[in-house]
């Protein structure tokens, strides 16, 4: 019987720093074992448990796209004992990984549709995965609009890639920060307000929202107001997921477990679930 509690061994192959304070770092991990690499199939929106032996595990959304290459990318905010130890990793170090866990964004349903991606802060990880996935088969989708907000310019992740995406004429990319700062030429204001301003058309459009709970909470009603039906609003939720396989009991919202029934849910699914954010 396969044992879903045993982490696979991954090697750190690249480390990037996302912010000047160096609290956000991005790690590319490659499989130590070739057969495990072959067996590992994932889609944008799924997550993994990264394991520091002796410290424990934490869940992270997969930031790479399966279309990209042989590595898995994770962006890690240094905030607790596991993430602190991850920040001490060097190239070539080994880290444990369990996954892929959870479900994924409805990528098959997006074909032939406009896609609106709304993200906040360092929750842009799985949205990066999605965006790369879409751009790698650009012709399959119609308009792609991205609204990405952060508290200040430093806290956007993947800044180099954002610069490239902003240059493209086949992606509408809107950046916003909470409060104006000198030298900032993009939008200011919270994500829900900016969404209202940008007012993307709900016509044949799927909205995908991922960010901190407060952002999700106030963005979903804006989308409804703009005319998005519940079936075409998707969001990715977060809880303290431990086992990742629907057993340990801590990540439920109502009768659903974020780790196996989610983390991706449509508004239609969430309507009947209490305490969603």
């Amino acid at each position: 019987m396969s044992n879903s509690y045993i982490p696979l061994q991954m090697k750190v192959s690249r480390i990037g720093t996302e912010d000047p304070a160096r609290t956000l770092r991005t790690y590319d991990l490659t499989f130590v074992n070739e057969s495990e690499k072959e067996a590992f199939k994932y889609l944008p929106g799924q997550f993994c448990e990264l394991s520091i032996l002796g410290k424990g595990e934490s869940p992270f959304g997969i930031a790479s796209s399966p279309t990209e290459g042989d590595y898995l990318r994770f962006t890690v905010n240094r905030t607790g004992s596991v993430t602190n130890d991850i920040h001490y990793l060097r190239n070539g170090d080994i880290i444990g990984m369990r996954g892929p866990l959870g479900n994924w964004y409805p990528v098959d349903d997006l074909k032939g549709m406009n896609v609106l991606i709304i993200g906040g802060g360092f929750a842009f990880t799985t949205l990066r995965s999605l965006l790369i996935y879409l751009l790698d088969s650009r012709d399959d989708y119609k308009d792609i609009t991205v609204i990405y907000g952060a508290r200040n310019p430093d806290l956007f992740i993947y800044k180099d890639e954002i610069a490239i995406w902003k240059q493209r004429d086949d992606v509408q990319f809107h950046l916003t920060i909470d409060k104006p700062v000198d030298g900032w030429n993009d939008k200011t204001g919270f994500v829900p307000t900016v969404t209202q301003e940008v007012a993307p058309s709900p016509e044949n459009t799927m909205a995908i929202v991922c960010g901190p709970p407060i952002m999700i909470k106030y963005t979903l009603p804006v989308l409804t107001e703009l005319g998005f039906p519940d079936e075409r609003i998707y969001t990715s939720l977060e809880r303290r997921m431990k086992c990742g396989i629907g057993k340990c009991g801590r990540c439920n919202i109502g009768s659903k477990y974020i780790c196996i029934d989610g983390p991706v849910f449509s508004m239609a699914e969430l309507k009947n679930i209490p305490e969603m954010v």
Partner: protein
Amino acid sequence: MKMVRLDKQKFDDFIRELSAEYSIFAPGIVGGKTEFIPIESGEQIDTARQVTDMSAKGIFFPPSEVLFEYDKDGIRAAETSVRPIAVWGMRNCDSRSLIMLDRVFGSAMQMPDDKKFQDPYWKEKYDNSLIFGLACNEPLSTCFCNWFGGGPHNTDGMDVSVIDAGDFFLFEPVSDKGSDIIGKLSSVTDTSEEDKAMAEKLASNAESMMPPLLDLSDLGERLSVLFDEHIWDEISAKCINCGACTFSCPTCHCFDMQDEGRDGKGKRVRIWDSCMFPIFTMEASGHNPRALSRERVRQRVMHKYSYYPENYGEILCTGCGRCVMVCPVNLDIREVLRKILTYKEQVR
């Protein structure tokens, strides 16, 4: 199915026969409390109390269990296969709980086949087990298994049902596994019509001691309406979130995984956890979806009487009454259920 009889003088012979194939667990006294312990002879067994202090879940889902060990050479999964386990003296409130837990650990919820995560540690132990139940002839005042489809002589989840008839036990196979083992035992003998009449009398006598039924047909509906109501403040007002109810509960199965080790060597251990503790759901950011006692108490009640039934069609409570017995502030789940059924909505 055929009923057989085991005279109590032959009990040790029976245990010896069983031991040839199985490790035997039965209620025994540890530190003045009863729990299921590995036994070698009948002397170690104490089934005087109808309901053991600790439930039987720990046999298959131990309070602490090594998942894997690690050192500089890598990770080694803990051995999941163990010598088959036979349990003696399990009451219906515990045997029924194992069916409920098996839905969580044995298979997975509504997931496609490639996502049906099975728990090898539970599954190896439970699937190969042999359970001798023990009918309750004198239910306690805290017993309410009849509310949830159980009963003092109910045999769900057992392989062999056992009735203590004074000088002898009456065995009846419940599952195929149970039939097989009874066929193999040399310590048992045939029963007479009198024995069968005795079994029926004990059962009806025990039934008569059970509390009146509570109509729970509206419970799920009531709970979905009451989610935002003040009832949770009222119910949780005296709860001190000690978690005693969750640890003694035969159906509570939440766990934590913790690493123990130093100098690059150690193990990852699964330990019982409790939704009563704020840290259970506390996220690294400091955000806690169930920060308040009312939210945690609500979660426990909702999980048992609303969420699990929604997922599996059965209430996650067997009416063992342990939570009633152990609660330091006398929070009685039977009263909570009555309150839920009769509460008048105030919010919205």
